[in-house]
């Protein structure tokens, strides 16, 4: 029996348990719901949980563990000389066996022991499946009987069910957190691996980025992995983006929240937010096909040498991309400033602009800084626009008309090569990723801290 089928059976049993549990609770109370501690559906859920949860946990474990066990058994039953093969040869054999099991075509001769192993694996798997079906469904049945037997008017079914629900929620958030931890750990692991090949100071303080792809794999070809040019590219482009996004975003937020008529606001705000929904590739397109050439032509007409892909183009387009973040968040924050403060200021004879300048903005400032920082971390993580608009040449330059590149772009280009996974050329991507992660994390924490501080002021 396949695990999907087993799952379906367990779910059906769960449904049935719910109905039975509910009926039984009503029956024990002689039809008087008031005599029950909890309302009947809680008893149903109680039995259903007993039936489903242990069985599903077992099913999950089985699905994860069984292939490992079967694999190990099969591998151990291979002839000794095969098991003694070097790792890469052995993995080839295992691939052949795997292909046989899945009924895929294999190339070349298939040795007899491989066929044998494949057959063994298949039969083991079949047995295991049946065992699983019996055990899981059996456990569901046991859970059902256990739960159903405990039903009595005094059973605090609601409390039990709600505690179970709490644990379910805890489990979900634990998954989210564990995933993050897992990602960080895997990056950390690879990063340490990288630092065993390239000294950290060369990475963090190196001024030259030259990974020497072509020489990869050969001895004495470590290349240079200086982080600084990439980090500078990221900072430079983000800076230009902020120079575009903060004034425009903030002023439009002030207009929207303080001056615009209600109907204007109802139209303009969603329109601005649509900007946030445009895929960044499309912005990249715009930069590549329109803005880049435009800047180059303008530059040429005033005698400046502007390259078609430049920090300026990327920064400006990225700034446009971020405007809706800044304006939408700031607008919400400005709106959260209590009307009573504005009234207080008007009643003292302040004009609207004085009120905005002296009361609304100072009150909203911490929150606005928070929203800007969130936008910055968004800019730092942006890749697509940079690839298309700023190029991929890692240069340490102050000239906004020159092409630069960023950390994220290099992560992509280091990982999309045809290289082995344990060369510094690829592993550097993890070090870059971890650095970027640390930077954005710190920015986000700082932003959240500021936003929270601001929240406390009116409560």
């Amino acid at each position, binding site marked *: 029996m396949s695990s999907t089928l087993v799952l379906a059976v367990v779910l059906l049993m769960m449904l049935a348990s719910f109905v039975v549990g509910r009926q039984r609770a009503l029956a024990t109370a002689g039809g008087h719901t008031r005599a029950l501690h909890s309302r009947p559906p809680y008893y149903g859920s109680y039995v259903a949980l007993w039936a489903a949860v242990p069985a599903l946990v077992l099913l999950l474990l089985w699905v994860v563990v069984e292939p490992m066990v079967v694999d190990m058994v099969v591998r151990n039953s291979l002839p000794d000389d095969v098991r003694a093969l070097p790792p890469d040869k052995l993995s080839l054999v295992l691939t052949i066996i795997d292909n046989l099991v899945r009924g895929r075509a294999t190339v070349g001769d298939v040795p007899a022991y491989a066929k044998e192993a494949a057959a063994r694996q298949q039969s083991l798997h079949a047995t295991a499946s049946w065992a699983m079906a019996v055990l899981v469904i059996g456990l569901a049945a046991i859970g059902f009987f256990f739960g159903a037997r405990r039903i009595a008017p005094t059973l605090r079914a609601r409390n039990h069910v709600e505690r179970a629900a709490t644990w379910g929620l805890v489990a979900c958030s634990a998954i989210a957190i564990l995933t993050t931890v897992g990602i960080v750990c895997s990056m950390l692991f690879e990063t340490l691996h990288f630092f065993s090949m390239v000294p950290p100071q060369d990475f963090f303080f190196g001024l030259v980025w030259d990974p020497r792809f072509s020489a990869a794999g050969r001895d004495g070809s470590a290349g240079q992995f200086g982080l600084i040019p990439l980090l500078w590219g990221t900072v430079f482009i983000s800076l230009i983006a902020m120079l575009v996004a903060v004034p425009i975003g903030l002023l439009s937020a002030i207009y929207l929240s303080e001056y615009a008529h209600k109907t204007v606001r109802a139209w303009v705000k969603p329109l601005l937010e649509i900007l946030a929904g445009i895929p960044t590739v499309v912005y990249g397109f715009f930069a590549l096909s329109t803005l880049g050439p435009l800047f180059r032509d303008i530059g040429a007409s005033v005698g400046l040498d502007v390259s078609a892909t430049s920090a300026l183009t990327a920064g400006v387009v990225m700034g446009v991309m971020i405007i809706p973040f800044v304006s939408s968040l700031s607008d919400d924050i400005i709106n959260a400033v209590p009307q009573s403060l504005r009234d*207080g200021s008007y*009643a*003292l004879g302040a004009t609207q602009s004085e009120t905005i300048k002296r009361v609304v903005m100072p009150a909203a400032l911490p929150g606005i800084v928070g929203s800007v920082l969130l936008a910055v971390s968004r800019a730092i993580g942006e890749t697509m626009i940079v690839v298309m608009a700023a190029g991929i040449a890692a240069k340490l330059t102050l000239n906004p008309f020159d092409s630069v590149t960023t950390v994220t772009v290099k992560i992509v280009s280091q990982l999309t090569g045809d290289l082995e996974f344990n060369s510094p050329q690829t592993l550097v991507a993890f070090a870059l990723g971890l650095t970027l992660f640390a930077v954005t994390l710190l920015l986000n924490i700082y932003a959240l801290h500021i936003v929270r501080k601001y929240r406390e002021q009116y409560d």
Partner: protein
Amino acid sequence: MNTVAIKPVAATAGAASGNHAPKVVSQGVKVFYGEKEALHGVDLDINEREVTALIGPSGCGKSTYLRCLNRMNDVVEGCRVEGSIKIDGDDIYDRRIDVVQLRARVGMVFQKPNPFPKSIYENVAYGPRIHGIAQGKNELDEIVESSLTRAGLWKEVKDRLDKPGTGLSGGQQQRLCIARAIAVSPEVILMDEPCSALDPIATARIEELIDELRENYTIVIVTHSMQQAARVSQRTAFFHLGDLVEYGDTSQIFTNPKEERTQAYITGRFG
């Protein structure tokens, strides 16, 4: 509440009412919120250097009338005011009147204390700064100190002028708001239920304060507390359903009302 209980109301009110000239003269004031008429033509003269109380059941238009006097209704969308309101003979709804100057002459204290999230000093200095009243830092310091003193708050806050105004207690915040209003030297002070968010002791402080301020300012106060109206005011106006039902000396309104509805309201039969 008992600390200020029933002052010699009759004496002050009786003596005051005759001698004072009207500061604010309103005629046929109608207010519309969109299509809805909230005030149906109010004629009310408010005397100089007196406390005038506006009473009446909820929704009768007390706040609406009060907000006409410093044109805070301008801020409300869809609100329209008809009729004429004159302060010292100037029609405040005249095109030539600058609302900024008007509000410098007519200050307002709100129901809920609303200090700005700035320091205590900055809260009081706000008005003088925007109107350019003070020449230099010293004069500003003086204004802040005298306003806080007159609002009865100076002693409590003089050592922490740079602390946020939002950190004060509710009653202190309300007195800070009064100091803030006084700091621009208005002629009229409007108060919309200034004590409704305060405990009895803080209320008593504010009532004393109002009584002291009467010497220099014309005060209009909205209140839901009959006792408060009786304690602090010289004249009382009773509103009902957007009409001014009765207006007269506080002692007369509370002891010998002419209108049936006033009688019913002050004896607690409705509202």
